[in-house]
């Protein structure tokens, strides 16, 4: 399995050309990946950091 924790180059990158990609890699496939990666790369909202720090108090 590939873990894509670090993909800054993908979402920040311009596509080289605007014409159709090859048949095995249509625009939407790239788009789907970028859609996912764009969320992966978002900074984590504070609410998650708060939750993580609360986990230690829970059922430890």
């Amino acid at each position, binding site marked *: *399995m*590939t*873990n*894509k*924790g670090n993909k800054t180059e993908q*979402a*920040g*990158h*311009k*596509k080289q050309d*605007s*014409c*159709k990609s090859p048949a095995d890699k*249509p*625009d*939407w*496939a*790239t*788009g*789907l*990946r*970028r*859609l*996912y*990666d*764009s*969320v*992966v*790369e*978002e900074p*984590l*909202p504070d*609410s*998650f950091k708060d*939750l*993580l720090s609360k*986990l*230690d108090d*829970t*059922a*430890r």
Partner: protein
Amino acid sequence: MSGDGSADADEFKRELTAVIPHLRAFARGLCGRPDMADDLVQETMLKAWRARDRFQPGTSMRAWTFVILRNAYLTEMRRNRFRGEYDENVAERILTAPAGQEEPLHLADMHRALLQLPPERREALLLVGAGGFSYEEAAEICDCAVGTIKSRVGRARAALSSMLEEGSIPRRDSDDDEAHGAILDELGVIASNGSKP
């Protein structure tokens, strides 16, 4: 409390922290609404933490937590929380990527198209096409046969291709505001006609 248990918990937490961005991406793809997606992820994190004794170290934390997230999502779906909840404006704001203007395909269009798919095809495509899971892993996460996943992904791909190529998803940079206004006007007319006692 043993020192080992504590170290295990720390390691678990580290791994859980590392997959949060992926959980958020999967959840947002599933339900469309960033706020609800994040609620789902937080619920998932709590459930995962409580069930951490059942996690087998060395296996994929991402796959394990995706199962929890998916179950939480399905529960919410049954409660109808996500029905028709896609918020265009929020999506526009959230999905503005830095290079977006030069992309042949806007992410917002992509997301809209994705949300047109039936949920089981959407999740299959998200897992395989976006999350990078193998068919086998996706089948395990969705608790179904590999063939079923392959067929769902295939159908989802075909549907997306035709939606995007035929332009049946409205492009966000053309007349969206007008179209939106027209729809609101129409709804207003319907509401005023239909709301008489």
